[in-house]
């Protein structure tokens, strides 16, 4: 091949790639650097070392539970935005949304110019936290994976927002109510078999490694859906063979009406729970939000599992029994 052809070719390719990839080269690192006067170093509940403003004023919450905790600490005025399904308390519904907690919208988060983002270990994708890190937006992550860690999370948020007295009050009220439930559940002699349904089509229950499993145990029941898979699927054959004595269905199961959810079970009188009319549809928000309201959920559950504890004169009147949670 004559060499001028080769030269021409080489030049052609060089030109081609410069045109295509040339704009790759100048990559500016324009990360936003908040010019905050005072910062402090804290360790969040996932063990990350974070530098946060002394008093965060522009905060985005990446989970409905976190939003709820901020409201309960009375610090809602710092919240700029939150994620889909943040509906409690009702005022939280007015906050702008930055995607869902499974898929937060990075660009919208950055556009709000937050000085702190609150994340949760279970659910928020790790890569979003990493990207926020690289953009110098501090992320404080909590890990409310069970009742004890909910209290820890509240206390940690109390420290971050200088609302420690409020946080301590909520945490100790939780502890008091929990101790009371524990005390009563200790009196029971039999733990009924419980099937906890979180989705209807297909039927999804909860495995051992979830806070709902812990809740059932604490309420004095036995979760029949044991196993290491967090959210195992079931068909009716399996459910029938498990023979639950009590069925608890969360109201969000498949977006269905409580009546429809109950009817699905009532087709099977072979199941003990159906025969004894112990199918209960409960408010999903009390059970799938890891916040202090989970104690309400626990009380509800204890009532359904052990109604004899609630017989007049038996139960300590300090436990709130006005909120049944039945739908």
């Amino acid at each position: 091949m004559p060499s001028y052809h080769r030269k021409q070719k080489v030049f052609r390719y060089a030109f081609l790639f410069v045109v295509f990839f040339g704009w790759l080269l100048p990559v500016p690192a324009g990360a936003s650097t908040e010019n905050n006067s005072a910062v402090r170093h804290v360790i969040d509940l996932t063990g990350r070392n974070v530098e946060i403003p002394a008093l965060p004023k522009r905060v985005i919450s990446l989970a409905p539970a976190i939003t709820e905790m901020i409201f309960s600490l009375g610090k809602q005025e710092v919240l700029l935005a939150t994620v889909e399904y943040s509906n409690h308390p009702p005022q939280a519904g007015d906050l702008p949304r930055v995607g869902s907690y499974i898929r937060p919208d990075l660009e919208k988060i950055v556009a709000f110019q937050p000085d702190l983002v609150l994340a949760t270990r279970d659910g928020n994708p790790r890569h979003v936290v990493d990207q926020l890190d690289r953009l110098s937006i501090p992320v404080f992550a909590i890990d409310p994976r069970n009742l004890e860690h909910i209290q820890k999370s509240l206390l940690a948020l109390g420290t971050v927002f200088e609302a420690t007295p409020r946080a301590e009050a909520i945490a100790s009220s939780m502890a008091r109510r929990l101790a009371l439930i524990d005390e009563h559940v200790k009196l029971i002699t039999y733990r009924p078999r419980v099937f906890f349904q979180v989705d209807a089509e297909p039927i999804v229950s909860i495995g051992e490694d979830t806070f709902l499993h812990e809740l059932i145990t604490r309420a004095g029941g036995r979760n029949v859906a044991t196993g290491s898979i967090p959210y195992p699927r079931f068909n009716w054959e399996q459910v029938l063979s498990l023979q639950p004595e009590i069925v608890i269905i969360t109201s969000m199961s498949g977006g269905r009406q409580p009546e429809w959810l109950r009817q699905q079970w009532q087709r099977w009188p072979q199941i003990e729970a159906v025969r004894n009319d112990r199918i209960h549809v409960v408010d999903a928000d009390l059970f799938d939000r890891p916040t202090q309201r989970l104690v309400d959920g626990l009380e509800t559950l204890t009532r359904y599992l052990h109604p004899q504890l609630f017989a007049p004169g038996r139960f300590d009147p300090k436990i709130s029994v006005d909120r049944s949670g039945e739908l």
Partner: protein
Amino acid sequence: MNRVPFPSLARSLLLVTVCGGITLAASVFLGLSGGSSGISFTSLWYLMTASAPGEGVTAAIIWDIRLPRVILAAATGSTLAISGLVFQALLRNPLSEPYILGLSGGAAVGALIGMLLGFASFPGITILAFVGGFSSLFLVVAIARHRSEREENTLLLGGVMVNAFCGALIMLMLALSKDTQLRSAVFWLMGDLSQADFRKLPLLLLLLPAMTILFLNARSLNLLLLGRDSAAAFGINIRSFTYMALGLTSFMVGMVVSQTGLIGFVGLVVPHVFRLIVGSDHRLLMPLCLFGGGSFLILCDLFARTLPPQGEIPVGILTALIGAPLFICLLWKAKT
């Protein structure tokens, strides 16, 4: 042998490069100026013309969030379009495309295995994606080879079946994996550019040598269109050339699939549009697919992340909405 190029080739190539470059630059500009937090041309223009890289929120959004995404979209679109072009010539089937032939599906299976095993994105996941893609492609081509030359649809049927099998494998792995992993993988199945990250982008530079080699062999692709015998008469070692080209495309597709998931039909839409415009000279089609594929996917991604008010959708939904009807049209045309 006549080695002197067409008199107009150099000029056509220059024209193609300039037009393609301008289109790509315009797409990049559009892709950078729009996003879920709003669309602004002026602030982007201001940032681009400013001497300093710029600070603050707008700069961070454009340079650190949108730019890696646009680059990933461009590289993915180019790769898929060029791979489609190469397959269509190599297998002499106008409906060939990495997604339809099961190459993307195989690569996705490999990448998913790597992710579930907790491998690093390079070399672990990339190599597994390459192995998965190459083996499914090899399988499809082998199925087709045992048939007579005329039954070219065997190739597509083989691809459909390998695709179905890979799809089943993917669903199986997702069904067995833990719930939190599954949620993001569902998006990944229809193509997900939202995880674009500057730290992973340098990997894409490995695409360059592969694309260069393919471009240097554009003439062989032209000759292959004349038929295997004619190409052999022109001195092409068809067997080794086929393996080389299939290996390179598998590598490229494996690379992008492991970062973006399954994005279909780009390799079908883009080459066909350009073939209508400039004919079937692969020396021109190759750079056109490079620019056009990149632009196409940047624009699709722009729509995917700005149009739905509920939040972004996987970009593969848009490419399939455009590509599948085109596939049906082409099938229809081939019949009549």
